[in-house]
């Protein structure tokens, strides 16, 4: 009697790809799902809101209605020159989120480039780049943000995009935040590249004559996607907060372009009497950043190669 013919098909399951495993694990992470829902809520608010309420409405000055508390007509109240805070929260949200996303794009590009080049080529280039990275690490980023923002303030004029006008400071802030947040990712990418480049698939790629560039971008980097994705996600949250800080201090995005941050700045002088001016924009920052942090946490758990447990 041959035993090989008897198989229990209960243990026969097709293996899952890493991507499928990651998605499954992400789905199990309840907070991450909550984060996705919350974030969708905020994004819908910002997008749908801007369809319902025009930008002109958000900039509409109505001195008679100034400083009025939440009401049917102005669900979030009005600010010191009578502008509707709900509208400004919607449009401010657009700017804040866009700043967050674009700043992260810059940061990722810089971080990956510096990390990959440093890790792959090593030697002198690595030393210099790492010294530079370390130097930037040693300054608290808020300090750097403030200085750079002040330095570049007013250098870029107001511009129009898609029929709307934006203060030049938006571009400034995007660049400034991007330029001060790439270091963390650079370090991680460099560490990963250092270990990956010793692996055999890289040697194999070199043997078939792949150029250095293609090795880096087509072979090594795809294997270090996980920390890049997680870092990118969490940085969006960080960028939104950074923008809020900088705008709150007054060196960020300048009015009349609204962001959640500078809405809070204006509210500072009306702390006691008009709490609605700072409460709502702040809540939205909280919701957005919170949801992104949840998602980032879920992604991190989902993609952690160390925790590769059987997920059936």
């Amino acid at each position, binding site marked *: *009697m041959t*035993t*090989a013919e*008897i*198989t*229990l098909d*209960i*243990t026969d399951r097709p293996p899952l790809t890493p991507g499928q495993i990651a998605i499954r694990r992400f789905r199990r992470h309840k907070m991450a799902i909550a984060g996705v829902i919350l974030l969708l809520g905020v994004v819908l608010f910002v997008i749908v809101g801007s369809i319902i309420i025009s930008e002109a409405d958000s900039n509409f000055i109505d001195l008679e209605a100034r400083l009025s508390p939440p009401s049917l007509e102005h669900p979030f109240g009005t600010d010191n020159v009578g502008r509707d805070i709900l509208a400004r929260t919607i449009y401010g949200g657009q700017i804040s989120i866009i700043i967050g996303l674009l700043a992260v794009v810059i940061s990722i590009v810089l971080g990956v480039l510096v990390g990959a080049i440093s890790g792959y080529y090593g030697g002198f280039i690595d030393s210099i780049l790492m010294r530079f990275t370390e130097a930037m690490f040693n300054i608290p980023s808020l300090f750097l943000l403030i200085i750079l923002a002040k330095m570049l303030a007013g250098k870029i004029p107001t511009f129009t995009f898609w029929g709307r006008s934006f203060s030049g400071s938006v571009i400034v802030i995007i660049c400034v935040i991007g330029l001060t947040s790439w270091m963390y990712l650079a370090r991680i990418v460099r560490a990963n590249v250092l270990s990956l480049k010793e692996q055999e698939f890289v040697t194999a790629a070199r043997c078939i004559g792949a150029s250095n560039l293609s090795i880096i971008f087509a072979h090594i980097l795809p294997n270090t996607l996980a920390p890049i994705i997680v870092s990118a996600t969490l940085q969006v949250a960080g960028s939104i907060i950074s923008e809020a800080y900088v705008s709150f201090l007054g060196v960020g995005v300048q009015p009349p372009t609204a962001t959640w941050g500078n809405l809070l700045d204006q509210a500072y002088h009306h702390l006691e009497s008009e709490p609605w001016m700072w409460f709502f924009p702040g809540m939205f920052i909280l919701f957005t950043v919170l949801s992104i942090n949840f998602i980032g946490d879920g992604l991190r758990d989902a993609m952690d190669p160390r925790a590769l447990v*059987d997920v*059936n």
Partner: protein
Amino acid sequence: MEPLLELQNLVVKFHTLNGVVNAVNGVSYSVETGKTLGIVGESGCGKSVSVLSIMGLIPDPPGKIAGGKILFNGEDLLTYENRQMESIRGARISMIFQDPMTSLNPVLTIGKQISESMELHLALSQKEAQGRSLELLSLLGIPNPKERFNDYPHQFSGGMRQRVMIAMALSCNPDILIADEPTTALDVTIQAQILELTKRLQGEMGMAIIWITHDLAVIAELADRVSVMYAGYIVEEADVFDLYDSPRHPYTLALLKSLPSVDRRRAHERLATIPGSPPDGIAVFPGCPLAPRCHFMVERCLHENPKLKTIGLNHKIACWVNVNTGKEI
């Protein structure tokens, strides 16, 4: 002789995300004072889980002791509160683990780790405990005990670390020492030393030993009685010489056959293996868990799980087939 420790029909299950794992399915064994019980089996057969249940160290959740009794000196340990178990662990029943690298706390001196139990269970002062620790260290063959007392685990080699673990376990003179594959992570020469040492200590201190391993050669050295486990069941149980002389269960046979032989005449033979892999413990299968892999399988094996039956003097097996004749019992 009255057994010192007796497991009766122990059932342990783990409630995991993937389903309920039946780790131990009605296992019974016992050990007497001064004797050694060997438990043999593949990884995942439930041997570790059964002894962790004795110590009350099954994490709950996800583990649950779903039935049976563990009688120690007549009392059922499963009815004990954690506080009562605390006074048993390390004092009456001690355990040493497989990997001496990770089983010792890296940031505490070994001296402290040995003295701890004595200060706790025997109410010794720090000085008294230290004195006794130094005695233990030299008893276990660790040179320069006085200097080594203040060293940290990473400053010892693997074999030395395991000796420290043994010293820790024996410090309060326990009635039973449970050893969960303590030599698996060590190389063969060190393994021989540890086995030698254990036998000597047992002779001097008189404790009972439960020794778990997947290595049949170790069992031959040390055990008085052997239980063979598979998939959470005991499939064969015998005195050690009986087991080697006349193994009666297909699994035991296969294990013995898979031992590499030093016999030059067999040097060119392929190593025998048991095809397939053990069940995952979640799937419920009505028949004998070994059936899909068993050479001697008959139709009945697929439908009924055989119970442990005595077939000779102190020799029990759980099988439907007589391996000597190939016919059903």
